[in-house]
């Protein structure tokens, strides 16, 4: 059977993009909340 490397890279690529996008979304929300908390306590 041929190795089909393109399928392997596609699978890992999709997973990496999805996980990175979720992590970035969480990081942005955390940063926004930290700024709001700092404004509140100032």
């Amino acid at each position: 059977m041929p190795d089909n490397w393109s399928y392997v890279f596609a699978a890992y690529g999709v997973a990496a993009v999805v996980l990175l996008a979720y992590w970035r979304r969480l990081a942005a929300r955390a940063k926004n909340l930290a700024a709001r908390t700092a404004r509140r306590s100032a």
Partner: protein
Amino acid sequence: MGVRALGWLAVLALIAGLGTAFGYAPREAVQGNVQRIMYLHVPAVLTAYLAFGFVFLGSVGYLLTRRPGWDRLAMAAAEPGVIFTGITIASGSIWGKPTWGTWWTWDARLTSTAVLFLVYVGYLLLRGMIDEPDRRARAAAVVGILGAANIPIVHFSVKWWRALHQPATLLGPEPSPIAAPIFLTLLVNWIAFTLLLLYLLAKRTEIARLEDMHAG
């Protein structure tokens, strides 16, 4: 251990997982290198099971105690659970094309996994539709408990029905038939995904706590 340290530990474990998947695990004799998708596909679904287990735990905890911390745990686990289930479906579909000759088939395992995905997408949508915190938490807890019933259906579907999907490689009733290097690679990736889940869970729970604090 701090959330940041847990994140770095997860990153190191993921690098080790990639190293074992592409550098240590042998080329599979029948499928060739495309079988390396298994080191993503299997740990992703096992991590999704664990995430939905946390949703179940948080849901039961909330209904018993009415403490918002349990609801936050359930919600924080549902998001990565949906993501890991999505990765399972996508990687399985990509793996299916060269090995089965199709991206998708209405096989028992594939169909029950798609249902699992939709149930927890519904769980998150439901949370978004109810504004009142206690009502939202109660309704979500019921879905979180009922949704967990689908996990054994997904896992044992390949035994209960005639399926195109292969039987369970791990967590099956019999000892695993796979070779030691393949098993070890799966284990390293499973640990890496579990650490990643715990990191995402800790970070999302903290965000939810701060959001509740600002809302209240």
